[in-house]
């Protein structure tokens, strides 16, 4: 009995301060018991320019942060304290928010049109990838002062849209140029004079990219051709290798109503699981040889192909008109073992840090579902306005996110 009481008291204090007042058994008179950030997260409310602050241990919306502008396709990276998030808005605004105080701490209008960003390994620099004007801008994470402005140019000197930005060890960032068929690595070990290494001719129209969890391989998906561009970043002189070329050979590609997203962990065990653009398939590649070792037929064109944290299963959502469905693939057998319809317009899924649950946003039903990854049971349904991206603070400790 005694032990039970202790445990529930500890749980309450970890979740939210105001609850402490109700814990008569707790003799604590400390006015501000420290609160952790490890079970917090943000859900983008794309239509209202707000963020829902959520708790993942006891699924709940704790509050909102408002006034963030156009958040369609917004993404978030976290400072290492897990308490501060950097929000990259479609309208080119970069905003630092604090999940504990639920306030905006700093905000700059840094471009006309932005699509995402990354934070450096040491947490000191934040980089934004911009469509308009095409390039990467790097900011001091503390002050949001501009540190470096790196234009992205094609062979004619015209600006290119930037996609697939990720952090690399040692204050470096890697990104792809949609309009210039190139991958760039910017080294900001001296922030005043960034050095950019450029790999050209990587394949037509890279649309997004991912960094493997170990930070070794960068993989850019190609819209303009069947295949992916792979860079081994541990090589002395990183080069581009084309992998999974011609995966759609002999098949008529379908119209792509939504671009797949590669960012997120699509690496499970020794395999990388990737969306086949224009096809109702998920591709499986061996991460040693990078040869195709399988493909799995799914219910639509995959958008997110996400491995559970343990890598045992891969969860897939789809482009419209199939975006009311989610399917789950068993990694060892490469079979679809579960499928369900969480709601209308499923835009994103995010696993809790250790993977016991997955949160799924259903934009047109204004709700987020929390689903048990072992039993498939729905654990909670949360009211969130037009939810899109879901970002938990555990991302703070991961390279490439």
């Amino acid at each position: 009995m005694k032990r039970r009481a202790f445990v529930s008291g500890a749980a309450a204090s970890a979740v939210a301060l105001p609850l402490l007042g109700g814990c008569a058994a707790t003799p604590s008179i400390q006015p501000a018991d420290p609160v952790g950030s490890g079970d917090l997260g943000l859900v983008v409310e794309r239509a209202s320019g707000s963020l829902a602050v959520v708790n993942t241990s006891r699924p709940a919306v704790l509050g909102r942060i408002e006034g963030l502008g156009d958040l369609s396709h917004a993404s978030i990276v976290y400072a290492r304290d897990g308490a501060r998030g950097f929000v990259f808005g479609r309208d080119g605004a970069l905003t630092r928010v604090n999940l504990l105080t639920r306030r905006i701490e700093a905000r700059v209008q840094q471009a006309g049109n932005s699509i995402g960003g990354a934070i450096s390994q040491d947490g000191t620099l934040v980089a934004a990838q911009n469509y308009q004007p095409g390039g990467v801008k790097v900011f001091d994470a503390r002050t949001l002062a501009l540190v470096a402005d790196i234009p992205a140019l094609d062979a004619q000197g015209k600006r290119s849209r930037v996609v697939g930005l990720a952090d690399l060890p040692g204050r470096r960032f890697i990104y792809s140029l949609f309009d210039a068929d190139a991958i760039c690595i910017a080294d900001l070990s001296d922030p005043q004079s960034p050095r950019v290494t450029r790999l050209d001719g990587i394949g037509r129209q890279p649309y997004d990219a991912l960094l493997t969890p170990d930070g070794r391989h960068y993989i850019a998906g190609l819209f303009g051709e069947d295949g992916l561009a792979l860079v081994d970043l541990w090589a002395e002189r990183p080069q581009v290798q084309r992998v999974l070329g011609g995966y759609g050979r002999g098949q008529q590609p379908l119209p792509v109503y939504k671009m797949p997203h590669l960012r997120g962990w699509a690496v499970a065990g020794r395999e990388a699981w990737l969306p086949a653009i224009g096809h109702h398939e998920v591709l499986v590649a061996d991460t040693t040889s990078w040869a195709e070792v399988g493909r799995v037929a799914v219910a639509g064109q995959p958008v997110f192909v996400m491995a559970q944290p343990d890598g045992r299963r891969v969860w897939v959502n789809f482009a419209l008109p199939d975006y009311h469905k989610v399917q789950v693939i068993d990694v060892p057998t490469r079979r679809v073992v579960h499928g369900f319809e969480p709601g209308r317009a499923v835009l994103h899924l995010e696993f809790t840090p250790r993977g016991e649950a997955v949160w799924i946003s259903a934009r047109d039903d204004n709700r987020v579902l929390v689903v048990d990854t072992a039993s498939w049971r729905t654990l909670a349904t949360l009211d969130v306005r037009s939810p899109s991206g879901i970002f938990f603070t555990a991302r703070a400790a991961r390279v490439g996110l």
Partner: protein
Amino acid sequence: MSSASLPRPWLLLSLLALLLSAAAGASAQAPATVEPTRQQALLRMVRQDCGACHGMQLTGGLGPAITAQALAEGERSPELVFATIWYGRPGTPMPPWRGLLSEAEARWMSAQLLAGLPALNGGPR
């Protein structure tokens, strides 16, 4: 509560679209062929799904800006806007939407884009 009061604004909107597309010399079929509830779904589709590439405020992203102002500045005709929606733009990520829309719906949508969608959160039209 809102379902009974909804048709009126949409009726006005479609009338407006009809007038505007007529003024622009559109060869469009009568927008009246798109039911009011479907019009609502289409407007949502423009913001949310077209918005995946063009931005929810239609100010651009992977795809170009398609606000009424941007279309006017680019001198985009109703026929061109319709054809872009209907056939897509080969070589770019713009897909043909004829698999998901009827021709009348695509024409109605292009008229809406050229006239300017109802403002959202005070953003540009």
